[in-house]
């Protein structure tokens, strides 16, 4: 049996979901579903991946938080940039947020291990 890592499993799931969407909802549906995963799920998984949570918890909470918080920021920024540009801006903001949290925690861990040396 092929030994699948976390990343490989994620890609497999994405392929399954993509094929399913294409078959039953056409290219329009495919774009919607993949778009949802990219916008509503991925940035928030990046954020929650920095915390001491189980893998299943990160997946579920990312989905349920992202599906509301992402559109919230799009709505708020929409008055300045328009809805379409705000989608891109919001994606960048949340991804950067996740990366910043990761950087912050890695620095905090580094400082802690330096203090222990």
């Amino acid at each position, binding site marked *: 049996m092929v030994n699948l890592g976390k990343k490989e499993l994620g890609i497999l799931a994405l392929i399954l979901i993509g094929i399913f969407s294409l078959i039953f909802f056409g290219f329009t549906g495919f774009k919607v579903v993949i778009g949802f995963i990219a916008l509503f799920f991925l940035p928030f998984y990046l954020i929650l991946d920095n915390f001491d949570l189980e893998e299943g918890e990160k997946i579920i909470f990312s989905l349920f938080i992202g599906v509301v918080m992402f*559109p919230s920021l799009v709505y708020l920024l929409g008055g300045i940039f328009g809805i379409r540009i705000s989608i891109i801006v919001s994606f960048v903001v949340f991804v950067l947020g996740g990366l910043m949290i990761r950087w912050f925690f890695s620095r905090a861990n580094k400082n802690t291990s330096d203090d222990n040396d």
Partner: protein
Amino acid sequence: MRVDRKIEFVFVVLLYLSCLWLWSLPFQKNSLPYGEVDASSHFAVADYMTQTDKPIGLLPYYIDKRYGGDNDYKNHVLWYHPPYHTAFSIAQIMGGERVLPVFLANAIFSSIVLLSVYFVIRKMFGFLPALLSGFLLMFSMRDIMAYLWGQWPERMGFAYLPLVLYCFYKYARSYLDKEEKPIYIYLTGILLAVNFFVHPMTFLHTAASIFILVILLFAKERKLFFNLKHVSLAIVIFLVIISIFPLQTMNVVVRLLPGGKDTPTETNRVSISRLFMWAGGLSAEGSVPDSYFSYNQMIGPYWTMILLFLGVFIIFFRRNEKDIVLISWLIGLYFMVHLDVIGQPGRVHRSLSASAQIFYPLIVLGLLYLLSYSKYLGKYKTYLKYGVIAIFVILIMFSSGKMAYSQLKGAYGGIIRVTPYQYDAAEWMKDNLPRDSEVYQFGTLTMAKSRWMWMLSDTYIIYRDIFDERDLVNATHILMDYSDRAAIGDKNTVDGMQSWEKENLANSTLLYNKNNIRVYQRG
């Protein structure tokens, strides 16, 4: 039953995709819009934002005509928090179309409760109870009917309840184990806020259940199970998040304050005997069919009731911490379904639509408890256990499954749904009529379809079951829709309409005339 995590993950993906396939049957072959009047309103809010590329601030004229008074704090603005409808708008933009992306997004949002229930039951009780609960939920007519009619945000809102209870329980457990994990209480605050955004009524369900959970945990542990600093921060997080949409948050607050639309009143109180019933005695004011109150038609075959009672008995008898989470969920639901006893006005019956999500896990627990006695059969126990489960699955598929499939496959068929001719006429009106037009509509079969045409055309449409001349006073245009009546062979109505048209519209300008649908500008 132990399953490799990776295999389980694939199982869950396949289970959810099966559910999505089933729930998307109404629009797989026919992507024209359907649903009752609520559905078209959710579409309209998203569609307006997509078309204008702007978030809705003040409601546009055609939406304001119906919903302008629905925000009790500030009229003429959104009555729902924006994120849900903005998500639909994002779907339209990603998909590049008006209708299919919204219905696909709605199918995903409405069915996502399967994932939250699966997740929580999996964490609490294991793979098999979770899988079976998810399987049953796929066929939940309670959820499916509300989804088809158009109570869309509510469907998604109920998905947060088990997650919030789970996070709170995990925090409490970590505190009691002296390995505090404040991330869980912060997640509780975030999820509660998000729940509030999606649908305030479902937030109240969650709040009721959390309140019961706190009481029951305290009664069990007889000591504090939280750090005040962490809980305070979680509350601050909740308040900060809900404050980012103040107009809609205050709408909820105002409705719940004394004198508000959703506050209990003496005159709305019902008999105390309602406490001894579940759905019995509930009034729906004609807004739902009688079958909505039937266990058999909404939850499952009557024999599953035995398992349900057994499941309820088990959790109350055992009362371990995981059972207490389910008890809180159940008591919270009971409380919300019986608010009419304290005079909560109208629509208490809508809380019934949250019942399947807790009933199914209890049914499964009842079944597995019975099967736990198979251990006395020695080497045959495994065959018996999985044999009975297989029979259970088959029986459910041929009862609830068959009903769900039939309902979804045949949902809003034929001219019960907006037809291509009506859709084209609505699109023409959107592109050609002034935004402040008032169109009087004759002939369309149902109010729901008329409302869809209203929201698709971005034009206020007046539709009445019985014609009243007074409604024509402000009408700038007349829409003569013969298409439905011709399709069903309703000659009487067609003749009446033609006679009226000849007599009253001779001096009006015919702007649109296609497929038995005509639009006149009044002269």
